[in-house]
């Protein structure tokens, strides 16, 4: 028996699936989560390395326009994208920066929703604001948001 030891870990060391396991465990305990976002699929609402706050669903029923955490049952992958259409027991999600939707997720796959995005962009605030989120969902669904953001990104960045 070797000596017991405890070491520190950083979430960056974990795979997407492992992050999903932690998100699932925390939301099951009805805990709010702070997490550093990875990737640009939700650009510009969520930029790479923005810190996001994920709230567990509890009694909240996610609706169109919400940015939600979906954990794919087949491969346990985590996707943090916007609901562009809600059906009775399923949701259709899409990254604002992506041209294609992710497809349909059963409601049970939705484990939390984005409560807060920590960055200096007003855009992020508006994109999850209850008044505008449906508009953002529509713009994302018809790819207007995707085209506009990609166009502006090309010019300014």
């Amino acid at each position, binding site marked *: *028996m070797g000596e017991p030891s405890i070491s520190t870990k950083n979430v960056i060391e974990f795979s997407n699936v492992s992050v999903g396991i932690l998100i699932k465990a925390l939301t099951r305990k009805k805990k709010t989560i702070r997490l550093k976002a990875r990737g640009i699929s939700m650009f510009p609402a969520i930029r790479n390395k923005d810190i996001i706050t994920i709230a567990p669903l509890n009694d909240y029923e996610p609706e169109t326009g919400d940015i939600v955490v979906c954990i794919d049952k087949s491969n346990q992958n985590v996707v943090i994208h916007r609901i562009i259409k809600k059906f009775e027991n399923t949701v259709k999600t899409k990254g604002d920066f992506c041209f294609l939707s992710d497809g349909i997720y059963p409601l049970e796959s939705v484990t939390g929703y984005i409560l807060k995005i920590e960055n200096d962009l007003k855009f992020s605030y508006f994109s999850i604001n209850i008044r505008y989120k449906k508009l953002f969902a529509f713009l994302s669904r018809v790819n207007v948001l995707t085209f506009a953001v990609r166009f502006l990104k090309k010019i300014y960045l």
Partner: protein
Amino acid sequence: MIDIYSIYCVSEDLVARNIEGELVIVPLSSGIGDLTSEMYSLNTTGVAIWEKLDGKKDLKNIITQIADEYDTSWDEIKDDVVILITDLVKKGLVTKK
């Protein structure tokens, strides 16, 4: 100071999961699981001790049990357990009952 005649248990303010072959512990600060802060991971020996912290057995019992299971001297196990528990208590992951 760790008292081996006391019962220690895993704090309720954390979430622990087996991930990629190791036990990952996420402390909860003010009820928030902050994955932007440091998390902890225990090695196999650490996990063997952690799993016995059920809030029922005192450390002396746990040490005896581990010494039997691993066929190692009681004193050696005692030192290891005390060192680990000291660290875990310091980090707020384990509390004295």
